[in-house]
């Protein structure tokens, strides 16, 4: 079991969360050519090591989180809310 330290709820089992995916993806402009959209939607770096990824606290506060996690050991380095405005609120809370 991976334990994720949700900035709002505290440390919880990963089974409370839904895995999102690679958090490093930058979506191109709406009128960008199809090849750029293809890269953003379908192609992944698929890192073997530390990667930034999103998790949704589905059965908790329902925040989307950005988690830095090793895909080899599952060790978690950092957790923060994806949305910068929400990050301010969670910081005040703690």
């Amino acid at each position: 079991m991976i334990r994720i330290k949700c900035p709002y709820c505290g440390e919880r089992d990963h089974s409370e969360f839904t895995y999102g995916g690679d958090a490093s993806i930058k979506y191109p402009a709406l009128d960008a050519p199809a090849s750029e959209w293809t890269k953003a939607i379908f192609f992944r770096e698929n890192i073997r090591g530390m990667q930034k990824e999103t998790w949704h606290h589905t059965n908790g506060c329902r925040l989307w989180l950005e988690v830095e996690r090793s895909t080899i050991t599952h060790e978690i380095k950092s957790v923060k809310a994806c949305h910068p405005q929400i990050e301010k609120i969670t910081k005040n809370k703690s």
Partner: protein
Amino acid sequence: MTRFNAWNVFKNGFTGQKSWDRQWRDPVPKKEYDIIIVGGGLHGLATAYYLAKNHNKKNIAVLEKGWIGGGNAGRNTTIVRSNYMMPGNHEFYEHSLKLWEDLSHDLNYNVMFSQRAHVSLFHSPGARDGAARRYNIMRLHGTDAEIWDLDTLKKNIPHLNYDDARFPIMGAAVQRRAGNARHDSAVWGFARAADSLGVDILQNCEVTGVKRSQNNIESLETSRGTLKAKKIGFAVAGHTSVLWQMAGLGNLPIESHKLQAFVTESIKPLLDHVVVYGVGGAHFYISQSDKGSMVFGGDLDWYKSYAQRGNLPIVQDCAEAAMAIMPCLGRIRLLRHWAGVMDMSMDGSFFICKTPLSNLYLNAGWNYGGFKASPASGWYFADLIANEQPHKHIQNHNLERFEKGINIDERGAGPDPKLHG
């Protein structure tokens, strides 16, 4: 190599069956090969075998970082089926099933292929209609498929929970020619047959670097020295991205996820079919091995990972699913469980294709279905490498299909690898 036949078994009986040859050689790597296949799993070995057999290619090597069959070939639930409906997929998997049907004779090695039927349960009229649609498409393409009503199902598989299941069983979609095979035998059979046709199987030979020019690969750095080849095939599903990036080729439409499998203690014959259960988000498949163990598996672990070990929530999910359809398993003890790392592709279908490099060919993205696909995977991949032209059945199984909008998405789950279970 001595062939396996009744006479040779009899003859070797005089020496206590101790005079058999090595099944495959342990050759010293040559400096240069015509074709190198990276990955000594089922797909790599099958590719080398069909290159030698169907296309009369010589001077082939298969590189394996550990021992052959020690990766995902030894980490699956050994199910073989061809219940696919997308164009390209059904021809491919049907071809694979046909190869399985004759594989023991072809390889002169008993792969213990058992066509015990693949029985996919349904629990609602909607699921029944969905299954009927898929299985009708299979019939229209000449694959065997049938729908069993509840009475037929009860007669064939009496031990399911027909009494008080939360989701009552209504019947099943069945492919009778499907079943399972012995994974180790398939690996050893392909290795032995490929070796007898002159293929060098190089174990403990890990690719540690790729030296390339603008348009092709010049040589591979391995733990057993530098190896050159005119053509190179990657068949390392699970770790394709790692090797792809070693070759400086960037991103792939693949994420590596892990899938668990479970084996229990041996019991008397209980189940002589492959039974699949999928309802309310659960996904579960079970069969009984020849040794008597119940072999089963479920969903992915739901997050990207290269760790070959599974998490506990999935153990619980699988145990719950087992209890939901076969409560008689309640007191059976689990002997082993493990996880394999798989290429989950963006549409749930595989890649057998050319690459941006002129002498590199790609075999990857096997998702849940690598084991059953292995003979056809080797067959079509060998065809591509030998003829430089994709066979019409796999002409869309390439990396360009996403940009062209011709995704081969069997489940209709969209570009999220973890959903293509």
